[in-house]
């Protein structure tokens, strides 16, 4: 009997030990992303606009704050914050018990070192966010204070995208004052739910669940996240049909039809912080406001949406809806009679010719260019279309003599703040830089509005007021034509659960922690 009791006790003890683990965590295998493009670097301070780069980096790193699905700034590694009335001082309290992948624990020093490093390196598309930071001070182990040189709302709006790295790892891997740039290019030491297992350049990056992740692992989760690179579209689809790929990003219109023919693939639509715009340089015939307004009326908005087979939305402003400061100031509708009327009132009623650049990286760009060319031909305006690569375009746009009369672009914005987008579209400081203001627009009144808005404290209603005025000016002056918001399409395998497109996760955030696979 005693022996029986002993065996019984041992069995009970073993079951007790095993029970919590099997009840709490359910690992559902490896989640595979099928992507075309490989990250150039894994360093969060050098992040570009590649969505895959964002997916990989955001799985391994976290910021002090984050955007909720509704676009609100909510806590992440910081649990709370105070913003001074003059919007110059931000004091943040840090979350306790957060561990980095190298075993060190998060404290204020990690935050200071990470922010200083990001500001100093100033690379990537997020390089500008910390530009207004003066000092980052450690108040105590779990409190950090950020002092700005000038109030800049973009700092707060961009902070969710600034990732926190292990200060120990930075110190241990620094070489010749490079702030461990060489190390972090191919390695990752963050606090994110997944840690880097391996990066095979040209092939794939594999990340595995970080056992000590601060949110714990209750419920179903994917055990590893694998990002595969260099896959072309047809191959990705074939792999997804066989369940070897679970998510395909930036799918095309034809893929929706393909997804509709099989139960193995679902398609999802999202509204990214990205719009398609047409710019008109203020020179020659386009220096005449009547001509620019005529062109705005001649734009085939409805045809573009139709060409996009309904996977696009009209834009009501030069800024994207869903951004802070957006207001509807524009009604996109083609009106050729109005266009003729305006053209007749200009000095160019007999027609003229224009040069337009577009980048044929995807079909909508070509459609847009050709449709507009046809519409303008009806008005006697001849458009010469040039399909050129980005590097060549930028080079041409820097010089007034070589800059194109018109160009069309997809514009991404890293932060949901209309001011950032409006600045890049048309602030006079970007004339002849090639990277923005392709209309060569110079309006001191417009510039002043954009310069004042970010100096206000987060939540100040005047931000909306100033930005609204700026949007109205751009439409009244007919500088930029807001064409459409092309919806983001991705494909998921039928087994994928918990995935939802996040428009605020710049340049892309899959939230792999929320994803699991159903067999």
């Amino acid at each position, binding site marked *: 009997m005693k022996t029986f009791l002993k065996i019984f006790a041992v069995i009970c003890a073993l079951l007790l030990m095993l029970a919590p683990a099997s009840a709490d965590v359910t690992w559902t295998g490896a989640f595979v992303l099928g992507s075309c493009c490989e990250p150039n670097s894994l360093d969060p301070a050098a992040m570009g606009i590649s969505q895959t780069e964002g997916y990989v980096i955001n799985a391994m790193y976290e910021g002090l704050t984050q955007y909720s699905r509704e676009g609100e700034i909510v806590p992440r590694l910081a649990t709370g914050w105070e913003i001074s009335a003059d919007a110059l001082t931000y004091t943040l309290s840090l979350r306790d018990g957060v561990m980095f992948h190298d075993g060190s624990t998060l404290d204020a020093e990690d935050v200071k070192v990470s922010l200083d490093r990001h500001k100093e390196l100033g690379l*990537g598309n997020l*390089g500008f966010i910390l530009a207004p930071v003066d000092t980052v001070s450690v108040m105590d182990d779990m409190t950090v204070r950020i002092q700005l040189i000038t109030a800049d709302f973009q700092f707060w709006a961009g902070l969710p995208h600034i990732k926190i790295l292990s200060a120990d790892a930075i110190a241990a891997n620094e070489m010749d004052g490079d702030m461990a740039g060489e190390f972090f290019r191919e390695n990752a030491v963050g606090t994110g739910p997944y840690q880097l297992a391996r990066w095979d350049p*040209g092939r794939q990056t594999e990340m595995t669940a970080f056992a000590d992740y601060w949110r714990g692992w209750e419920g179903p989760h994917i055990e590893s996240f694998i990002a595969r690179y260099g896959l072309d579209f047809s*191959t990705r689809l074939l*792999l997804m049909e066989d369940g070897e790929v679970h998510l395909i990003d930036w799918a095309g219109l034809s893929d929706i039809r393909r997804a509709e023919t099989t139960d193995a693939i679902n398609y999802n639509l999202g509204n990214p912080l990205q719009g398609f715009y047409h710019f008109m340089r203020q020179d020659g015939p386009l220096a005449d406001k009547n001509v620019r307004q005529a062109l705005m009326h001649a734009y085939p908005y409805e045809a573009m949406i139709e060409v996009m087979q309904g996977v696009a939305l009209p834009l009501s402003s030069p800024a994207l809806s869903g951004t802070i400061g957006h207001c509807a100031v524009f009604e996109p509708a083609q009106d050729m009679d109005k266009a003729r009327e305006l053209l007749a009132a200009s000095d160019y009623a007999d027609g003229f010719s224009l040069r337009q650049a577009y980048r044929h990286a995807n079909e909508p760009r070509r459609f847009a260019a050709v449709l507009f060319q046809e519409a303008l031909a009806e008005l006697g305006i001849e458009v010469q279309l040039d399909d050129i690569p980005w590097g060549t375009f930028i*080079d041409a746009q820097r010089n007034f003599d070589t800059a194109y009369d018109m160009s069309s672009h997809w514009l991404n914005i890293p932060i949901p703040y209309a001011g950032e987008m409006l600045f890049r579209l048309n602030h006079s400081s*970007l004339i002849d830089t090639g990277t923005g203001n392709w209309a060569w627009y110079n309006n001191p009144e417009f510039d002043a509005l954009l310069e004042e808005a970010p100096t206000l404290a987060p939540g100040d209603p005047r931000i909306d007021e100033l930005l609204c005025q700026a949007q109205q000016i751009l439409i009244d002056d007919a500088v930029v034509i807001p064409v459409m918001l092309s919806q983001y399409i991705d494909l998921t395998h039928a087994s994928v659960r918990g995935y939802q497109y996040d428009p605020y996760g710049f340049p892309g955030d899959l939230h792999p922690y929320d994803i699991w696979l159903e067999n």
Partner: protein
Amino acid sequence: MGKLLLERLLTLVLKLFGMAVILFVVTQILPADPAAVAAGTDARPEQIEKIRKDLGLDRPFHERFVTYITGLLRGDLGKSLLTRRAVADDLKLRFPATLELAILSGFVIVICGVSLGIISAVHAGKPADYLIRAAVVVGMGIPPFVLALFLQLIFAKWLDLFPLEGRLHTLMAPPPFRTGLYTIDSLLAGQWDIFWSCLRHLALPVAALSLGRLAVGARFTRSGMLETLGQPFVRTARAKGLRENRVILRHAFRNALIPVVTMLGIQIGFLLSGAVLVEVVFTWPGLGRYAVDSVLSFDFYAVIGAALVIAVIFVLSNTVVDLLYAQLDPRIKHK
């Protein structure tokens, strides 16, 4: 032969230097801004300027030229503008992938192409000859990337015999790097499952790459053999009572080899320089894809690096062909 080799090596160095100079100048005067490309489409001017400075693109042309050429003389191919990795390191990873594909394809071309050519010539005018010739016409007519898609559809999708793409199963880690050839490295590490996975992954790309070229090999061998089989020395060999196999392989085939070797040399050069479209279809991370990606992103140090490697491959394969000529025909050696 030693003199020939030395001569070729010296010319190789001069050719490479000339190529590097021309490519450097061409990439620098292109109307494009590599710093803007490296910074990304939504970068601000200050980020682009910073990257330009970091990459040394803000320095005058002559300074950049001297830095690059002196680096090249030390074996430094520069750094990729996009990944900031040393181009030599990138090539070290990419070239073995192409080499592995090329070696196996080369074997298939030589063994199958030459065999089919001999069979066709020996059975000239008979059904076997017609069958092989018909197959050769079809093989030469189908572009490798089209064949690749067919092979994927039939053998991977419908019959599920081979993997659709890639060098290795997604859930497998590559073997420890020794040569970069996964098959060899997995054997050296005793990782049989990986070795087997590699072989399965090689099957379709090798077939796609080699079938067309194999057809060319068969055609060259056939015509060479037909010409040689009609020569007096073959009749003499037969009259001496030698066995037919010996007559065909030792006497006729050896003398028919020179045009075949020329053709194979060129084919191997092409295989090694990267069959871009096949690499794209099979997601093969080889040299061809690397070169194309670099060109599209104005990553000019990577472009020059890849071009130099391709040049070395062509010059070396031509040199090997010349050396083989001398071995095959003593008259050439004498000259």
